[in-house]
């Protein structure tokens, strides 16, 4: 299996300086299952030992899934100004 970061590295990114994803991590503290950590194809959401979620927004593949994967509405997502550019698509 090709590791995720190596696969993401195949793509062309123009990463925004400001994150385009914000997570209300106070909500994450009360979330046990953390579906965002297994539902994002770019592995953007990582659970920290304290239960909060860190969003690696620079990995984002802009699928849009962030709008539906958190049942508690903790993820605030908009598309980045730069972001990924696909060569094949």
């Amino acid at each position, binding site marked *: 299996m090709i590791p995720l970061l190596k696969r993401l590295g195949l793509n062309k990114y123009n990463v925004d300086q400001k994150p385009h994803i914000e997570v209300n991590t106070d909500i994450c503290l009360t979330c046990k299952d953390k579906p965002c950590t297994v539902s994002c194809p770019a592995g953007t959401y990582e659970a920290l030992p304290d239960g909060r979620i860190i969003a690696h927004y620079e990995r984002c593949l802009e*699928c849009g899934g962030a709008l539906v994967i958190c049942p508690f509405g903790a993820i605030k997502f908009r598309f980045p100004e730069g972001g990924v550019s*696909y060569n094949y698509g």
Partner: protein
Amino acid sequence: MSSFDADVIIVGGGLSGLSAGITAVKEGLNVILLERGEYSGAKNVSGGRMYIHALQKLIPDALERAPLERPITKETFEIYCGEKKKLVFSFEEKEKRNSYSVLRAKFDRWLASEAENLGLLISYSTLVLNAYRENDGITLETNRGTLRAPLIIDASGVTSIVFRSLGLRNFTPDKWMLGVKEIVKSDVNLKEDEGEVRTIVNLIQGVKGGGFVYTNKDTLSVGMAVTFDSLPKSEVPAKDLVEAFRERLGIQGEVLEYSAHAIPYFGFKNLPPIYDKNVIAVGDSAGFLINDGFTIRGMDLAIGSGMIAGLAAKKIVDLKDFTKTDIYYQMLKESFVLKHLELAYSRFSLINRPETLNVYPEVLCNVLSDMFTVGEERKTLIEDALLRLKEKGISLTQAIKDMISAVK
């Protein structure tokens, strides 16, 4: 009218937006199209198969000029029943030129240049962040300032920025699929004018959906599409889904790109609002996707709905009444777009039931396994089928009912 920047602003330069733009420009409207990518297709991903009837209406000589990959001449279905059993069947039609594999970064870029040649103004790297009503029109906030128009065509894809900003969308993870895909370099072992689509179900456990392998000119599109609400139950996380799938299929070769995109999966009876005062939704933004078990398609619906939106826009602008967007809906109802969506609904909802893609294939595999096994005991086909159905808790009535909805 002078406070408006155009008659119509189209948000999104994919297939639906470009089709709307080409049609509206031909109708003589003053149109601006906003595309958030550096070029059309930069942000677009699709499985990669286009049924070309709508494209040929939009651009009659498209077949000679469009950057299509291969005509699809062979359909293969592979249904896995556990690791060790699978059911495979193929259908081949060598002269078939009804659908083609495509790569959207190439295709959409080409279509955008066609549109620009026809006089469509496209503003690239322009991201719409918000939309609201103001003085009988819509104001769009973008990264390059605000723009206003009395009519907006939302072609922004499944996330529908305009309708969503206006409070006209409420997304749930059961009505969206995640599409993940890799482009794999391959010596496609087929003649130049042949292409294959493989549709594969039940290879990865826990997810609701399936996988595909499409042959392009010198690459393969390998991917899966599964509902977001099934991802937490998947045996592999979303980030490894396509890799696990590719490995189990034994597909090797250099991986050139890894991409992902959400797919609308509403079905005819659950479509979101597709028109409102001053706004029209097209393509993915309108939730147009068909899965009837034979064809899985959104691109022809995107082109078709985009063209209708362009024609409707002309009528609405001529009437100078921007509340009359139901004109678009009436035209859609008369077109293949809504007719096909309605036709597909029976099988769409059957496929959508959890047992369809899990239990029935297993029953079928078990029956076949029994029929191909010889010992002293042997049942008739119908006895065996009933027994195998009963094992899975499915009554004959249920099976017959499902069979009938499968052929509707």
